[in-house]
């Protein structure tokens, strides 16, 4: 798991860690039962204060995304998937919002935008892959 921090962005570092781990779980790169790095290891990897990492893990635990077992580590919880759905929705919503803002600034009509989206999807041949992507997700909801 690689996280990238931007200390100067104004977003507290623990929030950045929480968001990125949420993102990792939402995208399915970590699934139920996977172990997160120890607080110490992650602190040293990111070169941040261990207390900050601890704080992020507590926040994730509070959200129910991970469970912390005394003396053994931090694991992705089974309740991750329903929340992953909303998290995913949230992330995509943000991106779409940004896109819409940009479109408005550049005088792109809504119709032109949807056409462009369709066109790009065909050009990149993404439709097929998107279908494929859903599979692990369905597996999640079964579990």
């Amino acid at each position, binding site marked *: 798991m690689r996280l990238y921090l931007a*200390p*100067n962005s*104004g977003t*507290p*570092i623990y929030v950045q860690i929480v968001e990125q781990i949420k993102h990792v779980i939402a995208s399915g790169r970590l699934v139920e039962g996977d172990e997160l790095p120890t607080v110490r290891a992650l*602190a*040293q990897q990111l*070169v941040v*204060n*261990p207390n900050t990492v601890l704080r992020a893990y507590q926040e994730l635990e509070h959200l129910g995304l991970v469970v912390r077992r005394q003396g053994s580590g931090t694991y992705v919880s089974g309740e991750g998937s329903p929340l992953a759905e909303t998290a995913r929705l949230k992330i995509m919503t943000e991106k779409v919002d940004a896109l819409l803002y940009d479109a408005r600034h550049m005088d792109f009509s809504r119709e032109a935008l949807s056409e462009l989206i369709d066109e790009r999807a065909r050009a990149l041949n993404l439709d097929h892959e998107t279908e494929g992507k859903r599979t692990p997700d369905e597996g999640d909801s079964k579990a």
Partner: protein
Amino acid sequence: MSATESGNVIAVESLTRKFGRKAALDNVSLAVPEGCVYGLVGGNGAGKTTLVKHLLGTFKAQTGSVRVLGEDPVRSPVEVLSRVGYLSEDRDLPGWMRVRDWLRYSEAFYPAWDAEYAERLRERFGLDPDTRIKRLSRGETAKAGLLAALAFRPPLLLLDEPSSGLDPSARRNILEAIIRTVAGEGRTVFFSSHLLEEVERVADRVAMLHQGRLVFEGTMEDLHATHHRWMLRFPQAPAGHPNLPGALHLEGDGQDWTAVSEGDAERFRTEALAAGAEITGHSGASLEEVFLARVGHAAVLED
């Protein structure tokens, strides 16, 4: 180990220091709890080094008091210095010593010196024991100084501008050392820096010095909870600065303004809306923004 009754490793109370008529430190009070990483930030000449020198006993408090690990560093220099790992800003190590001599020399002063650990650190830092210190690069000199500050596992690590003038690799070594120090044994780190990004990364608590005065002191969490950055757009350009008492700092011209606010975000939002502004963006403020806002603010008050 509990350092003092209050649990504070460093306790500075209403410390004032004057050089001639100029106050280098003006009524500074701060407390560093055990096990935390404390960042002291400020511009050049803000008084950071003066404060650090008080902590080391090199300066005697003119008014106020200084306690480090529960002791007065002026009255008991040996008790304090033997438990403080210190890396000076100038890295004034004896250039004529070889790295090996430097370690052996330093070892003599600290009963808790861990020779094996020192050797491991030396290898990790890639320092050749037979090189004279004056032949080391800037980064290597800093590493040699850091090595001597770490090898006796001091309860307090005191770093004065540890990464100024260093390349990214040496800087990372220093930051890692800070993290290892607190992560491993819950020891305390006090460091001064003007590289705010670094402080933001590793500090739990932060104190901002400006012209000898403390303009902010608190946890990073407090700082982020109480400081916000706003993008404001006014329907028509206000004459002069917009009237927003809750703003620490305002910047911009014409219709678009950036504000850094202190205190409750909702109150500022109401204030801004009442002033007729449209809020086009709102996010947390970074340490750098807070620092610039604070220092700018103080400078305005000065005038």
